[in-house]
């Protein structure tokens, strides 16, 4: 970096001499003459200083985020074998959108009204609930219309698609894996949100014991995913695990968590809730701090009980925080990898295979970088929807 480590003595401000960082850069010969005087030279100096200050970050940003992102889109349009391209850079073959077609479509795909009808009806009921909330003024018009459009598209149309008897999906594993990822998110996010909210309500006090308890509940959050999986892998072990000891002492048969096709997903959800509860709790505590004390005092004067205060004052005041917690967690848990990779290894029989692990394995075990990149782009698009939602919520538009 071309920035002097010690600041130099500055000449009078009006002169053309440049301040520290500006000295390092080229000064355009004969800065703009026009309206002249001090104003113009300050402008030029500010411009140069500004660019020099942001240059290091912008360079790194362009090189390590923007370039790989664009390159990822480019790779996703190729049949790109990791090993073949490593040996011969020309081995990548342009295939256009074929990776995406393989992922999202197949042969003989038809639409029928009664396919997955239960799930779709539940989804449509949820859409109706959002419309009802809009009617009552609980959510804004933008959110309601977005939910309506997305819900009708997803539950009304997309989930009715399936291959006919002769047809098949281009990638039989993709949709079930999306389903697993959504199941993981759908189980983890409400659990973390509810428990986090309950803890925040109980621990929002200024005494010593609440402070200690807050620390205790947050502590697991700072552990790395590999420590968390180390602990829970052993905890779930029927022979060695502490849950097994507990069951045996109650005279029950220990549960084989990670090898049971129905319990493997709950197992990684439990580990994840234990790991990431602190985050939700902290955000709820921050939200609780923002509720003015007068509201509580007014309620107390009115003789409201604890439960009435929580229901009519605390929870309504926390609605924005709750939305934020939910959206942030959806984004976070959609990226689940370590728990599935290390506790259950995606199994049994793909029951806990999730999107990021599928991307990782497609790319680095099967060497199909092109298809893996297409998967990654689709993951990005899923998450973009929720990132936009987060932006709206934190701006407070809604």
């Amino acid at each position, binding site marked *: 970096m071309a920035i002097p480590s010690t600041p*130099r003595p*500055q000449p009078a*401000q009006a002169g053309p001499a*440049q*301040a*520290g*960082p*500006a000295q390092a850069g080229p000064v355009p010969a004969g800065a703009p003459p026009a309206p002249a005087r001090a104003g113009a030279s300050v402008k030029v100096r*500010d*411009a*140069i*200083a*500004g*660019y020099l*200050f*942001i240059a*290091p*970050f912008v360079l*790194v*940003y362009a*090189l390590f*985020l923007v370039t*790989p992102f664009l*390159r990822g889109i480019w*790779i996703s349009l190729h049949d790109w074998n990791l090993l073949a*391209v490593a040996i011969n850079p020309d081995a990548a073959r342009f295939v256009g959108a074929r990776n995406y077609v393989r992922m999202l479509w197949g042969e003989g795909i038809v639409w029928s009204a009664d396919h997955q009808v239960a799930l779709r009806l539940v989804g449509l009921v949820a859409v109706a609930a959002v419309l009802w909330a809009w009617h009552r003024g609980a959510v804004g018009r933008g959110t309601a219309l977005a939910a309506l459009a997305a819900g009708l598209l997803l539950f009304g149309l997309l989930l009715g698609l399936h291959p006919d008897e002769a047809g098949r999906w281009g990638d039989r594993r993709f949709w079930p894996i999306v389903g697993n990822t959504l199941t993981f998110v759908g189980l983890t996010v409400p659990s973390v949100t509810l428990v986090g909210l309950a*803890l925040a309500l109980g*621990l929002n006090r200024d005494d010593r*014991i609440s402070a200690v*308890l807050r620390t205790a*509940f947050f*502590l697991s959050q*700072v552990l*790395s995913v*590999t*420590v968390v*999986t*180390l*602990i*829970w*892998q052993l*905890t779930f072990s029927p022979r*060695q695990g*502490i849950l097994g*000891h507990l069951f045996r*002492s109650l005279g029950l048969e220990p549960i084989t968590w990670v090898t049971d096709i129905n319990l493997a997903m709950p197992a990684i959800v439990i580990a994840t809730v*234990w790991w990431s509860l602190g*985050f939700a709790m902290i*955000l709820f505590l*921050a939200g609780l701090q923002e509720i003015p004390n007068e509201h509580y005092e007014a309620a107390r004067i009115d003789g409201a009980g*604890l439960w009435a205060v929580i229901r009519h004052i605390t929870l309504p005041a926390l609605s924005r*925080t709750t939305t934020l917690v939910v959206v*942030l967690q959806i984004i976070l848990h959609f990226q689940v990898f*370590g728990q599935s990779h290390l506790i259950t290894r995606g199994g049994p029989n793909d029951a806990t295979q999730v999107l990021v692990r599928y991307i990782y394995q497609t790319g680095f075990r099967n060497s199909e*970088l092109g298809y893996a990149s297409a998967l*990654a782009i689709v993951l*990005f698009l899923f998450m973009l929807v929720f990132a*936009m939602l*987060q932006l709206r*919520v934190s701006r407070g538009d809604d």
Partner: protein
Amino acid sequence: MAGNRGARRLVTLLLVLAALVWLVPIVWMLSLALQPNELLARTTSNVAWGLVPWPFTLDNLTFVLSQGLTPRWFLNSAIVAVSMTLLVLALSAMAGYAFARIRFPGRRIIYPLVLAGLVIPEQAVFIPLYTMFADWGWHNGYAALVAPRLAVPIGVFLMTQFFRGIPDYIEEAATLDGAGRWTIFTRIMLPLSVPAMVTLAILTFLYAWNDYLWPLVSASRPEMFTITLGLASLQANFADSEGLGRVMASGVLASLPVVLMFLLFQRHVVRGIAMGSGK
């Protein structure tokens, strides 16, 4: 009122019990790390389901500290986490100061473009990054482990927000005294921003120490593993590897820096989470 206090006590009691249950997995890891390997091969529930480390030994901890690759992994993690933290601080503080306080042409376009990077997750770029670094021969080096995180704009966002909150008169006074931008930045703005930088530093350090996916992709030689990655490699075959007690000791060691950092700087961690998520 008395009834209310009684209810309050009951809630506190329940919360204390819940916290004890919550801490059981951590206590258990610590306790297993302090029991002899030979015992653990037979049973993990010697005293109180294994929650009391008896018979007690420090052999596992001294073993992983002196033998095998764990010390090397620990060192790698320290190098990666410290250099990543320092670089993120430098880049974010400089860019944040410029975006917040210098009126240069184009900043209203560049800043949103930088923030747009917040929606790009690591998972969307790790494959192309892998191919780029492979072309450059960067893999199995510290630069490859550090560089991708430097481009994540959350630090720039936090520092810009912070510098925007500093009143104008402070800078104006210094400008009248003839101080240049660099002087103002290093002598006035940086000292003022210490609290924000501590927060950013801790969040970056925690992230660097705990990151798993990218090191897994980039570092293939065991000598270049971070402790987080090394611990994953021990788990893969942990029944027959170095013994349960030693694996747990590695886990304890891997957790020690982040747990200590959290206990010392709780306030900053908590504030950082609230700030980083747009509260």
